[in-house]
């Protein structure tokens, strides 16, 4: 729409008077920012409504409606969600699942990617594609068998089962991305390390892994949000409500506090905070990772 009007004017053979060119450029800039601001406001508005609602009292929302400006300010909503709603426990559960899952699956996929990209492993292309294919399978195929397997293994309704499943399902995709990245690392580095007497494991840990750090950081940030935000596996594999991670806990809270929107809004804000922090801290890798991570 308004792609670089300045350069258009410079190169285009059209002979516009300089004043007209200037006016056109200003109009284009104004148009660009107006569109940008309208879109941004439309996208921010829902978040803003929830944020504001979370600080309003029940009576205020009931009397003035959810769309009105706030007449009250309270933190009671957060206290209520945190204590009675059990959000604290839910956040702990989420962390117990998310952090080990991210670490284990990245370690395993980095190892696989290292082997496949740096050595002539037989059938390496086939192995890689099979692993990627596993990640593309619709999760629905796996729900019933995995619920059954975890029951037989006596780990149904445990956070450990959730970790195991998430690791197994994520590995294929992370391996594929890390493989693509690791094969760009020049072989000379590896050869130099070999000549210096480094063994395979040292080459992996001290040469290849540090060089793959950008890709690992991107995948780490992404997978944190994916696993933290998951709903389907938690409601499939967990039954005890005290064990639910925050995403599932917030949803069941909605059932309990059906008319008390400020409490639900507060819970929604709490559930959104951890992944928002990860996003803000790792913003650059995160966006780079999304571009890599288009399979998800």
């Amino acid at each position: 729409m308004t792609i670089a009007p300045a350069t258009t004017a410079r190169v285009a053979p059209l002979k516009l008077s300089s004043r007209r060119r200037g006016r056109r450029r200003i109009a284009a800039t104004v148009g660009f920012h107006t569109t940008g601001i309208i879109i941004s406001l439309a996208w921010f508005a829902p978040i803003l409504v929830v944020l504001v609602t979370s600080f309003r009292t029940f009576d205020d929302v009931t009397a003035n409606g959810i769309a009105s400006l706030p007449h009250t300010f309270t933190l009671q909503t957060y206290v209520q969600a945190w204590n009675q709603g059990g959000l604290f426990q839910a956040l702990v559960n989420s962390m117990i699942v998310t952090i080990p899952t991210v670490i284990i699956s990245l370690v395993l996929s980095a190892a696989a990617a290292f082997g496949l990209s740096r050595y002539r492993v037989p059938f390496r292309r086939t192995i890689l594609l099979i692993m990627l294919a596993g990640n593309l399978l619709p999760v629905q195929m796996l729900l019933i068998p995995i619920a059954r397997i975890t029951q037989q293994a006596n780990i149904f309704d445990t956070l450990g089962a959730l970790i195991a499943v998430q690791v197994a399902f994520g590995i294929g995709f992370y391996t594929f991305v890390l493989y693509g990245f690791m094969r760009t690392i020049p072989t000379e580095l590896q050869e130099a390390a070999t000549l210096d007497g480094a063994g395979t494991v040292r080459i992996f840990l001290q040469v290849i892994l540090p060089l793959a750090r950008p890709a690992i950081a991107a995948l780490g940030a992404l997978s944190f949000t994916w696993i933290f935000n998951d709903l389907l596996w938690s409601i499939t594999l967990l039954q005890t409500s005290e064990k639910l991670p925050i995403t599932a806990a917030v949803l069941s809270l909605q059932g309990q506090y059906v008319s008390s929107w400020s409490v639900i809004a507060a819970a929604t804000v709490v559930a959104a905070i951890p992944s928002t922090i990860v996003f803000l801290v790792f913003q650059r890798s995160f966006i780079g990772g999304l571009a890599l991570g288009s399979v998800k």
Partner: protein
Amino acid sequence: MTGTTLERDRRRVSSPPPSVAFEPRRRGMRIPPPIVLALVLVPFLVEAVGVFWPAFQGVALSFLHWNGIGPARNVGVQNFVDLFSDPIFITALKNTAIWIVLFGGISFLAGLGVAMLFQSERRGVGIYRTALFLPIVFSLVVTALIWGTFFQPNGVLNNALDAVGLHSWTRVWLGDSNTALYVVIVAALWREIGYVMVLFIAGLKALDPSVQEAARVDGATTWQRFWHVTFPQMRSVNLVVLSVLIIDSLRSFDIVWAMTKGGPYHSTELLSTYMFSTAFETHALGYASAIAVVIFILAIAVIVSYLVRALSEEKES
């Protein structure tokens, strides 16, 4: 995606002339010591046990009649036959199709639009981009709750309609089978468009700018440059985005489950939600597995074309 970003990195890292780069690579790819085989096999086995084995079981289950407790009975393809005379399944199939067309189509077009708008680095563009992709970090449940405040009977939308005197337009958006599906799609779009934008911007950045420049010098208008130059160049990005959107649509579950659980009267039922409630509420495990297999069959064309692309990209380099 992989094709664009990785390839750029590849070019940057392996800059020496091809004749030099080729030789050491061949020698560098040595025969693997046993430890390397272990590094590859352990993750592969983890995935095999956690994904492939259950997937095969899932297919096997689809030929059974089983409630999970009593003895299972082999019924052959009866589950699949039954599906097509099951009105709820037909509704779910239809809704999934609507979901792919509306959710996928609008995400694609709007994502491409905002990517074209916000692709160039200029003042303020960072804020606009952030606004669009911030929702990606929220879970679909959070998204559902956020939009719930809008579409509840006393929510923002009805309040706003009342305020401007359009009381007759107000309704129970999520409780009305005529509107519920579209309301859920709106919420899902809010979260997806920014993601598609990121994919398109990455794709646009990888294009050769000299072609654009040439078209510009030849006097092509902005629209002509987009339609005849940029868009055809983006073929591979378009295919990636389309496959992502179709796979995402077929997998969509969380947002529907959080907003409507497939109701009212199955009006928002997707294959994924119907599969879940059949499995874990009705406990018809064989029948639910058959629905899962249908989802898999629908996804297969996309998955295969995706893998073929991944393979050809792999061979090129």
